[in-house]
């Protein structure tokens, strides 16, 4: 593979300015997809499996209280419009990010919750990664636990999925890596001590042991972007939502695990 001859030939081709197409990145075939859960050690799996041990459930409980508490100028609680979340929110997280007609772009679940706050409750939006927003998001998403991930396959969303995919495939940052280099091509390997995994967003918001906290999918994405030493995006940026959307299409059909636990 690394015969000096080949290397010299390649070096000369490059020197001559002949572009060599990088090997096409291969997306993971559906039958080989595995949740981040399956890469975890048995003791970490046990934390996720037991609701009384899973710290994420504390946020879910807080979220339930917020669901039922009145807020904003209209004095409405989420429950005043949506009633029992166990029925009305079932399956909702499985199809987010979803298209918002007024904004003409996809919004993620946190943004949807904040749109309800501003549009329906006439309350101020929660800050990204605040305890309240994570709690409400975790509570809503938990109603979809076990539901199959099913992002809408509409013509309106298609260009945003495509943008997310482009971002995932593109090399960037000082380390010149693309998401695909690790998560499509090396998911059976380890980066120092960490399993690389397939980057499937099955359990967000997650309780991450390293964070000692619940955190959103965007927090996780920002971690990887920082690791690549690439320019980051603010929470809620369209680019991060597009990336979320693309990741959900990769996970189509897999069950929601929220609140998942990760190392």
């Amino acid at each position, binding site marked *: 593979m*690394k015969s*000096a001859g080949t*290397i*010299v030939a*390649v*070096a000369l081709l*490059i*020197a001559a300015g002949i572009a*060599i197409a*990088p*090997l096409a990145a291969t997306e993971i075939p559906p039958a080989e997809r595995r949740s981040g859960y399956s890469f975890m050690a048995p003791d970490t799996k046990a934390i996720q499996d037991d609701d009384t041990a899973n710290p994420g459930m504390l946020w879910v409980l807080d979220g339930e209280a917020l669901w039922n508490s009145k807020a904003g100028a209209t004095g409405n609680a989420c429950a005043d419009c949506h009633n029992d979340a166990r029925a009305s929110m079932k399956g909702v997280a499985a199809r987010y990010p979803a298209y918002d007609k007024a904004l003409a772009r996809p919004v993620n679940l946190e943004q949807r919750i904040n749109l309800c706050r501003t549009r329906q409750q006439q309350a101020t939006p929660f800050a990204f990664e605040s305890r309240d927003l994570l709690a409400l998001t975790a509570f809503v998403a938990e109603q979809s636990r076990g539901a199959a991930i099913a992002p809408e396959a509409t013509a309106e969303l298609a260009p945003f999925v495509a943008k997310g995919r482009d971002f995932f495939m*593109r*090399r*960037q*940052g*000082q*380390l*010149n*890596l693309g998401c695909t*280099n*690790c998560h499509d*091509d*090396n998911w059976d*390997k*380890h*980066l*120092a*001590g960490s399993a*690389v995994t397939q980057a499937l967003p099955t359990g967000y918001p997650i309780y991450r042991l390293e964070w000692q906290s619940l955190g959103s999918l965007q927090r996780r994405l920002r971690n990887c972007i*920082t690791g690549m*030493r*690439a*320019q*980051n995006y603010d929470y809620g940026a369209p680019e991060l939502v597009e990336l979320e959307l693309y990741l959900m299409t990769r996970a189509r059909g897999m069950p929601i695990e929220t609140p998942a636990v990760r190392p």
Partner: protein
Amino acid sequence: MLALPCAAGGQELRPYTITGDAIVESLTGAPGDAVRGRALVLERTSTCILCHSGPFPEEKFQGDLAPSLSGSGSRWSKGQLRLRLVSASRLNPATIMPSYYRVDGLDRVAPAWRGKPILSAEQIEDIVAYLATLLE
């Protein structure tokens, strides 16, 4: 033989000459320090052991995205190791190994790292000196 111009903008890279698959001359004009090189390879910010393993019994977390560094000095000359570190993608355009002494051709680099190579010429020489001692 091919002489490379310095990258435009940012930190000035020292010029070097690629001969075949190697950079024969030290980037600094002086030999590196193998002891410092070993410490650098193990340092998290150098990123090497995120992907590579090697003869580092004290380090619990080593990567397996890349071949072990053990025996590097038997397989490659110092000049070959130097080009591999400076710009592995010149040897294999599809490689995931970053180019440690390059500032051009990169996309969306975070402001803190923009215009800077990942390692300095001195650091590359120290690592080359260390890798050359890894004989099998």
